[in-house]
């Protein structure tokens, strides 16, 4: 059960002087959904293409079910990897019907098996009765489901999804997200998908990997990733955040917003200058004529009111309050921590 379905060990790939993927290592377990989150150009699509075998690795290994499929010396062609890939633009064959697309990967099956699997897959992706249509006769969501069905039909050992929902409109996106997640979980298919949408990454995945400049910086459960990012960059990638400067004093950090309990992945000496990670939900904003903060601006979100509080040093902190918050711009306020867990502190680098 715990054997890795896909394993990357120190995988690197560069195009000329540009390192697209740099020493990436992780293991994907059976039935697991892993999302790779990162800004565009971070190398996440290249990573998928390396795993699928469309690109060769410069260094490192890719293993599928323990077998080495990519290394600088060996390269199994994509057709022998049993890895399914769903492309960002779906890549449906325009000259084939939905049914022909779906059974495309079932070559060794008998006619009867093929028909049975076709029915099964069409039911799975809720496209019964659509088998005779051509891809261009379908809506975006339907095209996506055909692409997924075509990928799942040959029962691949793992499925790779490249920005699967980026071509869908917002309302369809959340619906498809649930549908696809439900489907993949039901099949217990090990899945890797790449996205630049953190909401998507958190909502669908068992674990999230953050990729920055070709490196997989951190892999963790969505909760751990949000609560304790290992670097300020990961913190910024995984959610809205601000940094409060402070100084370590024992188990607390002295900041403009009070003395806060802290934790860190690295060692921080007494008196060290640090930046404390603040998420939008970490502070309550209370009106106080003697408070050291002032409401600089308000942003109404419908389900919440985000107040931007400016502190004496000029540092601003975004704080999400209930939608009925009456605090007007210019009100003097104090910030009070709304959480009991310690805050994550990062040693201050020279330039920040």
């Amino acid at each position, binding site marked *: 059960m715990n054997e890795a379905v896909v394993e990357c060990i120190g995988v690197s790939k560069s195009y000329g002087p540009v390192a697209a993927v740099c020493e990436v290592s992780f293991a994907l377990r059976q039935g697991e959904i892993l999302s790779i989150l990162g800004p565009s150009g971070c190398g*996440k*699509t290249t990573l998928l293409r390396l795993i*699928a075998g469309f690109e060769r690795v410069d260094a490192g290994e890719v293993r599928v079910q323990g077998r080495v499929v990519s290394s*600088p010396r060996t390269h*199994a*062609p994509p*057709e022998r990897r049993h890895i399914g890939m769903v492309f960002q633009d779906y890549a449906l064959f325009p000259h084939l019907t939905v049914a022909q697309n779906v059974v495309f*990967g079932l070559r060794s099956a008998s006619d009867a098996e093929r028909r049975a699997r076709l029915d099964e897959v069409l039911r799975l992706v809720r496209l019964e009765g659509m088998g005779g249509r051509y891809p261009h006769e379908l809506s975006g969501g339907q095209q996506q489901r055909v692409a997924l069905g075509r990928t799942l039909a040959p029962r691949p050992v793992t499925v790779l999804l490249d920005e699967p929902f980026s071509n869908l409109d917002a309302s369809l996106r959340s619906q498809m997200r649930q549908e696809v997640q439900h489907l993949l979980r039901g099949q217990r298919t090990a899945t890797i998908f790449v996205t630049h949408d953190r909401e998507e990454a958190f909502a669908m995945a068992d674990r999230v990997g953050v990729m920055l400049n070709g490196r997989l910086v951190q892999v963790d459960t969505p909760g751990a990733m949000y609560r304790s990012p290992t670097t300020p960059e990961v913190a910024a990638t995984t959610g809205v955040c601000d940094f409060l400067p402070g100084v370590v004093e024992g188990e607390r950090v002295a900041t403009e917003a009070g003395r806060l309990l802290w934790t860190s992945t690295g060692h921080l000496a007494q008196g060290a200058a640090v930046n404390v990670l603040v998420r939008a939900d970490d502070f309550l904003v209370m009106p106080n004529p003697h408070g050291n903060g002032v409401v600089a601006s308000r942003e109404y979100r419908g389900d919440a009111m985000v107040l931007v509080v400016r502190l004496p040093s000029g540092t601003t902190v975004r704080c999400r309050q209930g939608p009925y918050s009456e605090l007007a711009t210019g009100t003097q306020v104090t910030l009070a921590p709304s959480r009991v867990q310690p805050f994550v502190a990062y040693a201050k680098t020279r330039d920040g």
Partner: protein
Amino acid sequence: MQGDSSSQVLTVRLADLTRARTRRGLSSLPSLWLLGPSVFIALAMLVPVAYLALRSAGASDSAWELLFRARTAWTLGRTALLAVSVTGVAVLLAVPLAWLTARSDLPWRRFWGVVSVLPLVIPSYVSAFLVVSALGPRGLLQQMLEPLGVERLPEIYGLPGATLALGLLTYPYVLLTVRGAMENLDASLEQSARSLGYGPWRAFWHVTLPQLRPAIAAGALLVALYTLSDFGAVSLMRYETFTWSIYQQYQSAFDRSVAAVLSLALVAMATAILVLESRSRGRMKYYRSGSGASRRAGVTRLGRWRWPAAAFCGIVASLALALPVAILGYWLARGIAAGEALSPLWSEARNSLYGSVLAALVAAALAVPAAALLVRHPGKLSRGLEFTSYVGYALPGVVVALALVFFGANYARPVYQSIWLLVFAYVVLFFPVALSAVRSAMVQINPRLEEAARGLGLSPPKVMARVTFPLLRPGVLAGAALVFLVAMKELPATIILGPLGFATLATAIWSASSEAFFARAAAPGLLLILLSSVPMAFLVVRLRSPEGTRT
């Protein structure tokens, strides 16, 4: 890693390839089955060049001196001038015709769509001959105007006549590539230009035309190279070009090395044109990467320009197609009236069809892997292959034919004087016609489709058979039809390389008209035009039908 960096990925592949070949990698792109046919065709194309080099190496000093004489430079200038003027005429005729037949509410648009391509079926020697007989001194037009007191018509010999005859014959090359590109353009691009405040004309000029540039350049390349190699029209129009000089050398001089040296100069000229064209191609990406059905451009209403536009199509079609056919018909009728016996042309027709169909099949079959190599693995290797493949096209038929006689007699005895050596010559002469048609279909296939098929477990040859080829089929058919067409017309190679007693329609026209039996040339001429038109018309109609385009 999206969008613009994918071109980078493609260029990097070749580096991958060279690295992969030194390893024991399981797959290396491009694989042997792409490379093999491509290398074969490149070598085939190099046979005439190798022959020319061999001949030139044995050339006397006087032959080389000839090359550097002032007269050679003069011929070079005239040839370049003709190539430029013919290409200009072809583009100016083709782009409006393409737009009118693809994107406007022109009356009888489908009819014009077919008719505008058909001038391609008329051999240049027939067309030029007919232009002379119709518009020349004491020609039909003058005879008609004589009662009105017209003694002389403006001189049509020389540059104007040659440009007219060749321009009217060759513009369909540009028309075909441009119309294909126009039908595949994403309408949203033009629409966004309109929404940004561009009028229809400015939107066409600033958005559509730049996108058509590669298609125009690809067609113009064929026109320019064809002009270099043409003999029929220039000789009848008495306009001296390199090819004409080469023919004269072959006919008059003992020393074939002079002709070889001149031919090498022609190869150099063709290379210069190829460099120009590849410069103009740029680094654009042509396949649509968005999802969903492509938005086809709507029809533009011509309003009060509808009938002038139809008149324009009518004038071009009547000059390029109706006039030659009418004159041939008139001669045929006059010949029959004069008691000329109409000999049946079954064996000539069968020979023409046989050789041309074989050539079309072979050329189209070889064009598929070659186009896949060019489009999917761009780099020095594929550019070299492409360059060499165009060289044969720029060479006059007689040069290629004589090179193959030499090659066949010395190294390929079994195929010498068989139909296969003739088919080989046709392929060497016309391969780029097939290649450009297949290539323009290839660039529109999103490479993700092929990757998706491989991800689903298909090996590269199976991907080609089940995904690439079906999508490529319209382009392959077009390429095969075009090769068929030009092979039907080819004269010198057929005369020189055909098996003993192998008479075709082209040779029948030639022998009759060289003996000045115009009436006797009319029947094979009309039959040639008819037989070539059928697949062409079928192709144009099919490619534009809903079934062919799947909209």
